[in-house]
């Protein structure tokens, strides 16, 4: 039987073939890809590693260096151009 903490959805089941039959092992799921909050496109260059690994990753791999890092480059460009044209 699996321990109660492994029954939650955060773990994924892996079935391994053994001589006696199949054996179930458990592994943590990876994080989802970071997405643009405007268009929903996946952001490039941001790691989707496990939480415990992300703690030790550098800041440059966790976010883009440009402004509005929650947006993709195309949406960011649109937003900046809109703002510039409004003020002008």
């Amino acid at each position, binding site marked *: 039987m699996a321990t109660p903490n492994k029954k939650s959805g955060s773990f994924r089941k892996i079935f391994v073939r053994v001589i006696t039959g199949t054996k179930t092992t458990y592994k943590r799921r990876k994080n989802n890809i970071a997405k643009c909050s405007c268009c929903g496109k996946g952001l490039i260059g941001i790691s989707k590693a496990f939480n415990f690994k992300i703690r030790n990753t550098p800041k440059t791999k966790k976010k883009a*260096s*440009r*402004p509005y890092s929650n947006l993709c*480059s195309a949406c*960011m*460009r649109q937003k*900046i*151009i809109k703002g*510039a*044209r409004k003020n*002008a």
Partner: protein
Amino acid sequence: MLEIGRLCIKTAGRDAGKKTCIVDIIDSKFVLIDGATRRRKCNVSHLEPLDKVINIKKNASHEEIKKEFLLLNIEVKDTKPKTRTERPKKQRKKKEKSIEIDKKETKKEKTKNPKKDEKKKVKKETPKLEKTNSND
């Protein structure tokens, strides 16, 4: 539209959203920019021109542009130029060698048998007995 002194906003890269002005026109595609951004070559498609034009000469220095920007109440942050640091040279490990020599000496001392030395000393002290002929 794009001329020397034209104020623009950069729309790409890490300097996106910052205000710059055109310092020099290189090609039909590229211009030299300076201001709140870094002084660098830039694609025309990565710039959004504004309605203002500053009075500067071609290839004006960063300080001249900075003065003009301050009159327009635009902040310009200067970054410190990086100084090159020399690579650390590898030095021979002198201390370890001395330790090795000591180790060798200790090994030699260890290999010497104290019993054998004692025997040798005893032999040297005792005079050699003269050979006696059995026939006599």
